[in-house]
């Protein structure tokens, strides 16, 4: 992620994973596309929460530095494990304003691996601390 692409809705936290105590969810595929040495925080509006196998996806609309809305694809765990942990298809309702922390894609594409989220009312999901 190039810093020049960041807007007020996106801020990059360069942190070591060990310091965060964060471990990525298991995937059926390699996670080599994600930069897990960095945490990107995105503020935007939920477009869709795909509660599907083999992974869930949070589609988040985020304004870039020019004000244009960009759709981000944020990958999370399987609906099965998340469901056992209390996550539901309704956890991310369309239209909700939220800030999401993610391990961004290495090439700067609008995608990432979900870490945690905080809604405008302060409620958190996933690993937020």
């Amino acid at each position, binding site marked *: 992620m190039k810093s020049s692409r960041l807007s007020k809705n996106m801020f990059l936290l360069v942190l070591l994973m060990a310091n965060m105590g964060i471990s990525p969810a298991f995937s*059926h595929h*390699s*996670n080599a*596309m994600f930069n897990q040495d960095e945490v990107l925080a995105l503020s935007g509006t939920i477009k869709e929460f795909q509660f599907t*196998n*083999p992974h869930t996806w949070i589609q988040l609309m985020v304004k870039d530095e020019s004000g244009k809305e960009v759709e981000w694809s944020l990958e999370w765990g*399987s609906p*099965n494990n998340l*469901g056992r942990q209390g996550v539901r298809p309704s956890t991310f309702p369309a239209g909700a304003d939220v800030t999401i922390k993610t391990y961004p894609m290495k090439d700067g594409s609008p*995608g990432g691996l979900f870490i945690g989220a905080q809604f405008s009312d302060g409620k958190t999901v996933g690993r937020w601390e």
Partner: protein
Amino acid sequence: MQRAIIFLLFSHFAFIGSVNAQELPDWSGVWAMMGGTIFDQDTKIGDGGSTAVGVREHPPYNDAYEAKYLANLALRDAGVFPDPNSFCGIPTGFPRLMNLPDVYEFAVTPKQVWIITENGPNVMRIYTDGREHPAANDMWPTHTGDSVGYWEGDTLVFDTLSLHSSESGNTIIDRTGLVLSDAAHIVTRMHINDDGMMEAQMTINDAKALTAPWVVTKRYRKLEEGARVYDYACNENNRNPIDPNTGWTYTIGTDGKIIDINPGQ
């Protein structure tokens, strides 16, 4: 009178049935593997999971298989190690089947034990009805091989062979790149230990790959009563296709187009 005789006969057989059922341990419930998907935690070095650079295990490989493992580790480090599970649809196979995320069920029946994994899903059948392995000519490599076993008290002991070779591309053991040959022969002992965890100790012999028996123990904790198991459908909404030429894992958007502009850069 006739009804009384029928009742007594029914009660007698029901009693015999319940005695037989009580001889088998109660492995009901939903179980989850402990400790992550590094297959052999005891010989692991490095920090992180199976995809972390620098992490490896130390099976008693001979030189040829150590070289294969090192080559796989290099691919892993580059993020392009080919995992059959990533392609969606290829069964996991044994022994990796004992090394999966998500949850397990262990179904004990009088003549078979079924190990059912949510991830996949996969079913491994272990015959405990006294049969032996088929003759060599009557077996061919499969993902879970052929397993026959017996009970030693509350411990299930089973013997597995006729497995796919990892070299065939059909199976691996974990994402560090652990592999076995088609000579793999595995004896597994499963029981619930004193801590209430399911414990599976696998003793792996492989004349083509190993210089000594390789003993690996996996443990599983029982989830809370009432936990459910769900469908797993890898192709339902798989947005991570693998490039068959480079092994790179792409990400596709909701419009079906690849969103990686410069993959991995």
